[in-house]
């Protein structure tokens, strides 16, 4: 099957079950499907170790670059592993606790290719795709920008 890459940067929600069906549709040559979904957590580890309830996550993005960065990452994954389909969805705008933020789905004839590609895409997305999270705690007016974590930059070194 020729490689199919599909990228969406969108405000609307998505349904991981429907995405799974699209990854599988007319794709019985690929026996392996790996998926990752990131959701808004309702607790955020504070810098001082305390936990604050997050009411809303505000996701800012760089329109245009967000799509092209995700496409680049998908292509890099497809150059490293024999993938059939790659699907990436990333939302922007205000998101409530529990809502889906990101979806990465990969299909391959080989389970390790599908799983590694899925992990690779998430690692690069975390450090290379232009999205920024602001957490707005319950009852707060002002939000606070999420700090980038050095563990995310370190995660790229294993690839």
């Amino acid at each position, binding site marked *: 099957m020729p490689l199919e890459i599909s990228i969406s940067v969108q405000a609307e929600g998505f349904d991981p079950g429907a995405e799974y069906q699209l990854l599988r549709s007319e794709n019985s040559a690929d026996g392996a499907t790996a998926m990752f979904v990131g959701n808004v957590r309702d607790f955020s580890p504070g810098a001082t170790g305390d936990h604050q309830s997050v009411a809303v996550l505000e996701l800012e993005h760089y329109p*245009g670059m967000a799509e092209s960065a995700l496409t680049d990452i998908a292509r890099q994954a497809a150059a490293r592993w024999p993938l059939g389909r790659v699907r990436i969805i990333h939302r922007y705008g205000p998101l409530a606790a529990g809502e889906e933020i990101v979806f990465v789905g990969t299909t391959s004839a080989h389970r390790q290719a599908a799983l590694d590609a899925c992990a690779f895409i998430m690692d690069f997305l975390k450090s290379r795709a*232009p999205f*920024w999270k602001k957490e707005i705690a319950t009852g707060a007016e002002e939000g606070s920008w999420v700090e980038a974590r050095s563990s995310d930059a370190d995660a790229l070194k294993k690839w």
Partner: protein
Amino acid sequence: MIKVLFFASLREQLEREAVEVDATGLTDITQLRNRLAEQGAVWQSALGNDQLQVALNQQLSSMDAIIRDGDEVAFFPPVTGG
């Protein structure tokens, strides 16, 4: 002109999403950054952050990348999506 964009905390600190800068005399992104920083203490502080990231024409770039009239340059803090 060079279109300069700011995102996230940088956009908030500078209280603007974008500025247009005359490309005359600017060779690379560092020179553009220095010229913007001259506009005051807030600019100096926001653009002086050593974590500052930059994209040139919507591709992650380095500060020594060459720029030309018509380019789009974006400054932003480290990304935190996913």
